[in-house]
């Protein structure tokens, strides 16, 4: 039965005290995307809306709430792909962008490339009028706490993030 949208908030370890916010976040993002589809919107509009909502939700590892790299900075990646045309757009290692998924869509719509990275992606964002945001607005206390806890040489960041084998 059409239309249909399915959303995920990541397969990593979610502590009990955060699981309720995680469930609420994916449900509200799904409902927002489904409303677009019910109003006749495209599947591309729906998936970009759903992911934008989750990027803006500090309980998810994307946009605001992203995990930090070893230097304590936020570097983000995103992709979109259109099944009708096989067109796609992606950005990697972008900083100071609130919604990398929207920048990825601009790469698909406004360039002939499949992916722009780092400073090149930032220059493209500026040329498209995408407002840059201070890195601090993307960093949560929870992300900073996990970053500090995993700086020890003995730490296992992958297991901390992914959880043990399911």
């Amino acid at each position, binding site marked *: 039965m059409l239309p249909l949208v399915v959303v995920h908030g*990541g*397969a990593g370890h*979610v502590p009990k005290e955060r699981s309720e916010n995680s469930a609420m976040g994916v449900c509200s993002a*799904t409902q927002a995307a489904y409303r677009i589809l019910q109003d006749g919107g495209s599947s591309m509009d*729906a998936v970009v809306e759903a992911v934008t909502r989750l990027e803006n939700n500090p309980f998810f590892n994307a946009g605001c709430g992203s995990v930090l790299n070893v230097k304590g900075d936020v570097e983000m990646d995103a992709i979109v792909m259109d099944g009708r045309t096989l067109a796609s757009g992606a950005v990697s290692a972008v900083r100071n962008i609130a919604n990398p*998924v929207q920048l990825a869509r601009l790469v698909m719509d406004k360039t002939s490339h499949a992916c722009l990275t780092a400073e090149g992606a930032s220059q493209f964002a500026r040329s498209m009028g995408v407002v840059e945001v201070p890195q601090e607005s993307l960093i949560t206390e929870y992300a900073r706490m996990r970053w500090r806890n995993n700086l020890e040489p003995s730490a296992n960041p992958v297991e901390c993030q992914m959880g043990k084998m399911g």
Partner: protein
Amino acid sequence: TVGAVAVDAEGNVACATSTGGMLNKMEGRVGDTPCIGSGGYADNLSGAVSTTGYGEDIMKVTLARLVLFHMEQGQSAEAASDVSLAYMKSRVGGLGGVVTVDPRGNWAACFSSRQMSWAAAQGGTLHHGLYAGE
């Protein structure tokens, strides 16, 4: 990592995935998300997939495209998702999850990790889960 797949009323499929990456990653490390066929893939002839998990392992098996290859061979969205995740786990020990749709409106939310928050909306009904079996 967060992601979404959708089929609109005209039967067009699309995917989107976004991530902050891996905790305490090296500066400049890029995982599967922006890599077409790994972080996501969409083709009206087979379906759309968005993936999450340990990026280096997802890239080794090009997980998103692998799910759709199985669907092109006639497997359902759910069976294709499960067998692809099982392959990643057995072949390279990788854990992860996928959300998958086909152009006819079948869907799946599967994961080999302990949990994955997901939700689906179809026919006015909202489905959601977090732990295996939900």
